[in-house]
């Protein structure tokens, strides 16, 4: 194994966290998110503008000389923790991480231009693959004939908000403007309304070639996405635990706070343990991605295999321990549960990550 990963948060990272948290406290309160997901536009354009343009967070992973902030996955992970805590409906993971990573794997002026456009936050990109895609998968839904693209991809996250699609085909990776002729984006009714999915159809749409083979860029993008998704899941779980502890201390039944009943205390302590573990593994994945460690594949697989079920477990327990109020539309827990459960399918299920891990650490199935 290579050098020890740094599993802590630096002072700068903590400063970044509090800046993002302040913004989200002011501009992403749960009632607003609830109202938004029922309207025509689930994404929060104003919040995205604040985060991406004013704070410059969309360009964290992009080097300064290429139009970004020259930070790393460690900082992006902290941003995602906070976005997870707020179940913020912004395309950070999809545009600032996944699409950006795909472009970072490409060379040429087309890719460079798009990269700095995404880094500025004024352009939103989406890698046109289903949100459930695993890093190792092949993508053949869209075919290219002389840069004219035809095909259909379902389940593309945040597609409705994207200005440009990065489309993997057997003939290479292409960029297609969302406004181009022959492109249709049809929103789907999504289990997680805060990260909505859409079907993207290309009918002889004009593409610009980014790379002759799509696989390396897609693999890199999905690996970074899976690794950093763990930080979003951590943030989500962290918020749920804090809220549930607060609630069970305040809610009285049988003349005492329900949080004083041992059956509940033990469950909450167990959730705390899981969150503590999730933090170590999410940090490990972020650090491995940031340092380009040889251990990155293992770190990402471990992070997803552990953190995804933890987020779901904490959300399910949070709902149960809130009793009737937890079951209502008005309380935000359901937003968290929906995000947690869909994230456990996103970018590879636990089982897929474990299978990959078995290969990586030489523990093969029979």
């Amino acid at each position: 194994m290579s050098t020890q990963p740094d599993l802590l948060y630096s002072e700068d990272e903590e400063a970044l966290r509090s800046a993002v948290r302040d913004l989200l406290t002011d501009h992403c309160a749960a009632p607003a998110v609830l109202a938004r997901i029922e309207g025509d536009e689930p994404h929060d354009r104003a919040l995205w503008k604040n985060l991406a343009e004013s704070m410059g967070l969309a360009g964290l992973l992009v080097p300064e000389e290429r139009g970004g902030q020259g930070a790393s996955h460690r900082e992006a992970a902290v941003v995602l923790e906070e976005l997870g805590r707020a179940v913020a409906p912004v395309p950070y993971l999809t545009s600032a991480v996944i699409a950006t990573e795909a472009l970072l794997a490409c060379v040429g002026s087309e890719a460079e231009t798009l990269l700095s456009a995404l880094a500025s936050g004024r352009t939103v990109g989406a890698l046109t693959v289903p949100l459930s895609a695993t890093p190792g998968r092949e993508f053949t839904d869209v075919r290219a004939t002389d840069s004219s693209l035809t095909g259909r991809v379902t389940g593309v996250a945040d597609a409705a908000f994207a200005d440009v699609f990065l489309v993997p085909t057997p003939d290479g990776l292409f960029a297609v403007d969302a406004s181009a002729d022959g492109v249709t984006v049809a929103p789907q009714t999504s289990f997680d309304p805060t990260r909505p999915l859409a079907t993207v159809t290309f009918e002889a749409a004009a593409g610009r070639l980014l790379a002759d083979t799509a696989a390396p860029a897609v693999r890199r993008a999905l690996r970074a996405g899976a690794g950093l998704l763990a930080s979003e899941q951590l943030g989500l779980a962290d918020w749920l635990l804090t809220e549930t502890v607060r609630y069970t201390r305040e809610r009285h039944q049988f003349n005492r706070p329900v949080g004083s009943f041992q059956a509940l205390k033990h469950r909450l302590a167990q959730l705390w343990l899981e969150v503590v573990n999730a933090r170590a593994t999410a940090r490990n994945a972020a650090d491995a991605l940031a340092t380009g460690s040889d251990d990155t594949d293992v770190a990402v697989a471990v992070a997803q295999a552990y953190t995804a079920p933890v987020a779901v477990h904490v959300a399910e327990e949070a709902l149960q321990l809130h009793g009737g109020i937890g079951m209502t539309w008005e309380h935000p827990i359901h937003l968290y549960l929906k995000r947690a459960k869909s994230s456990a399918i996103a970018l590879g299920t636990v089982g897929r990550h474990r299978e990959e891990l078995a290969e990586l650490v030489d523990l093969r199935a029979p």
Partner: protein
Amino acid sequence: MSLDAARLRTLTQEFLAAHPVATTPREEFLSARFDAGLAWVHYPEGLGGLDAPRALQAVVDAELEAAGAPDNDPRRNGIGLGMAAPTVLRYGTDEQKRRFLKPLWVGQEIWCQLFSEPGAGSDLAALGTRAVREGDDWIVNGQKVWTSGAHNSRFAILIARTDPDVPKHRGITYFVCDMTDPGVEVRPLRQITGEAEFNEVFLTDVRIPDAHRLGETGDGWKVAQTTLNNERVAIGGMRIPREGGLIGIVADTWRERPELRTHDLHQRLMTLWVEAEVARLTGERLRQQLVAGHPGPEGAGMKLGFARLNQQISGLELELLGEEGLLYDDWTMRRPEIVDFAGRDAGYRYLRAKGNSIEGGTSEVLLNIVAERVLGLPPEPRTDKDVAWKDLSR
């Protein structure tokens, strides 16, 4: 001037030059290391340390390990090193510190812990062993139980009741008990593994000089808190490699013996492999926090996590071995010096791991501690708080 890592490295190298590993006898080497302040660097000068930050011990250990220096076999004296020493350091008189710390560290004197009693386990403060003052001595009578390693020990940390007329937490006093004194009788207690690792200890008119009291009379519960808290801190210092614990043993079996593999076992193996790796990372994160001077509450969870993992992994290992899992290596009633997970067979590991969630505080009690002290949840309603110990129902 406070010591930094570079200075400590130099000091350690100078020490090694003056006491060559190859030619210095083991005990002489360890004794000199203590005198040089390189035993536990955060202890005061003259008591095995240099008043350095605790985290810097790792620097010394790494240098000594690289040089192939003998260690003081910490597994043999876990209670002494992990629990008795920090308590003596915090509450002992100068004379007690000088008398006890060095032989303890060098491993010449092994320690055990006379805390639990048949009627006081999780509710340790309910203990009934009596200590009555007589001149300069205390006369102690009572029975202790589950005393690990009592058969090898020279000294014990002991808590006893010195005032039954006040509520239970207030009438306890903390002592050092000489296990060779008349009236101390150690009887082996055989455990499920077949061996007798722990014991019953009967204390009959044992005379403990008042000079062996740690802390004030009646303050023993507070002193015991230091002991119990230190039980958990010990984990932070160690760095374990990937597959460092029991998971490594099972993983190797899996790799070497493809004929044992089934799909169901594979699912469970990978789940536990991931959990073991995550526990390792949490331990590493805790260690990094300690080094950075911001210890986190994670330590409170580490023991819980390891207990569960050890039990699940050792359970899986037996099933993986199939037919061989039906055999056991040795039921002889031995009285071992250490707990040896790696040196015994899978059956032993499975059975011994059951103790991990009981010894040093049960998992249930630790979950209470996490819930109340870390999460700030309300305490259980208490019925014993303001009642004199003698009036409690037993």
